[in-house]
């Protein structure tokens, strides 16, 4: 049985999900997410040894197609909707720090 959800767990999960939470939000979310996980104890407690997991309800797997040339999205149309673009590419703020 997984241990109860703690405030620091929620803080860690928020960091993983790239979300900043205020102190108040941390309290609220800890409380609300705990309730959902508490409800999930019904399935956590089941013995499902040997039961297979389902990904597609009708068992479609490894769908393949012919590798044929076809038009892709218009680059200019895509980049026109980006927050920032430069020289035919998406532009982002710097990724690396300044050289020491």
């Amino acid at each position, binding site marked *: 049985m997984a241990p109860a959800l703690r405030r620091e767990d929620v803080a860690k999960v928020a960091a993983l999900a790239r979300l900043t939470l205020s102190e108040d939000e941390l309290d609220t979310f800890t409380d609300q997410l705990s309730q959902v996980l508490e409800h999930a104890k019904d399935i956590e407690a089941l013995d499902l040894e040997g039961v297979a997991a*389902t990904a597609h309800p009708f068992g479609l797997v490894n769908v393949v197609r012919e590798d044929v040339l076809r038009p892709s999205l218009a680059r200019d149309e895509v980049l026109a909707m*980006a927050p920032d673009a430069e020289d035919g590419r998406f532009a982002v703020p710097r990724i690396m720090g300044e050289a020491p």
Partner: protein
Amino acid sequence: MTSATQIARDVRAGTTSAAAQLETSLAAIRAGNEELNVFLHVDEEGARAAAKRVDERVGAGDDPGALAGVPIALKDNLCQRGVPTTAGSKILAGWRPPYSATVIDRLLGAGAVPVGKTNMDEFAMGSSTETSAYGPTRNPRNPERVPGGSSGGSAAAVASLMTPLSLGSDTGGSIRQPAALCGIVGVKPTYGLVSRYGLIAFASSLDQIGPFANNVEDAALLLEVIAGHDPMDSTSLPEPAPSLLAHLDDGVAGKRVGLVRELIEGADDDVLASVEAARAALEDAGATIVELSIPECRLGLSAYYLIAPAEASSNLARYDGVRYGLRVDADDVAAMNEATRTAGFGAEVKRRIMLGTYALSAGYYDAYYGQALKVRTQMIEAFRRAYVDADFLLGATAPSVAFAFGEKTANPLTMYLSDVFTIPTNLAGDPAISVPFGSGAGGLPVGVQLLGPGRSEAQLFAAARVLEMANGVA
């Protein structure tokens, strides 16, 4: 309002025009949208151009198709090239997709006229439209009540007669529950029957696009147009669209209908009375009722609220301020990602992303997500067993009639419980229809739910038609 079936027939015959039908629809939108907040965007220009093309084809002696000149509303998580698409979120404000969903191409190919994008819970996460970043939609049957969700705008568009048809998406009940609360027909097709290409993903293994209509025939007409294999969606079933209209009057004589205890337990008395009346109507039409229990349904809510958030946490990772939508500037890219997501997502979306991230994280994966996927297998097998004893199943769609604004927003779990009867079908991948049947507290509509095995839509539509006739809505 004239039915979609009648409009298409008249437009094809040249006795009315697509342009005239569109103006009727736009006038209804202008009259009601301010109060009800149904449409986030009305594409008058695009709709007029589409209507004109239909009328020109009729003028040239061509047949524009099965939905000739029928105005249709689209849930705002369906990408339409060049038309603003937000999924009810601030993070996509102002975005215009560079491509159209397969369903939209098929609608246009059949002569339908898309008029605009409808309000929804943010990223389809909610059961009332109250999580929309653009304010909630009001229920046309009683504006003090929610329309249901997440496809509340699409349900309200049809219920308020702004458009005869609309499309929604159903991940845990998001078509059927608002259909029930607004008093119209809503269909969640078999998983894979309708292409998801161009549907903004929430939980990909559960999401399915489906129709809303004021009557069963119109819903079948629309589903025939949008269903069928699409190479652009690798989860789409390999076969072409099923024939539904041809079986609409097949009736239910000799059919075994399973009344499922777990799909009514806990429902309000007015809802139970409607299910009981529907049972009697099906018996009167020659069906036999078998009382069944599918105990696995009780595990549906827990499994769903692990699987759907897990998939959502992965699907929504793409909103990082790089390629589309909102960007909140910061000194480096990681800080920009985080600032953008923090400002762009609402509370319910954050809650589900965190729940999903937690359920997938090291140490908890097996206990939560892995376990939920196994429950899903058990759910599929349980329904399969039920369909040995019954041809299709009957239950409630939602536990209550439309509830008041704010009634369930303080406690997320109470909101999640509004989908307790619809979630099991999504987990099983099977189809289900909500049909209005009777009314409940305050004269508000009640929906009953018909469920069948995968690919059994034709049979469900025939049964829905029987209920519709018995309800006096022929």
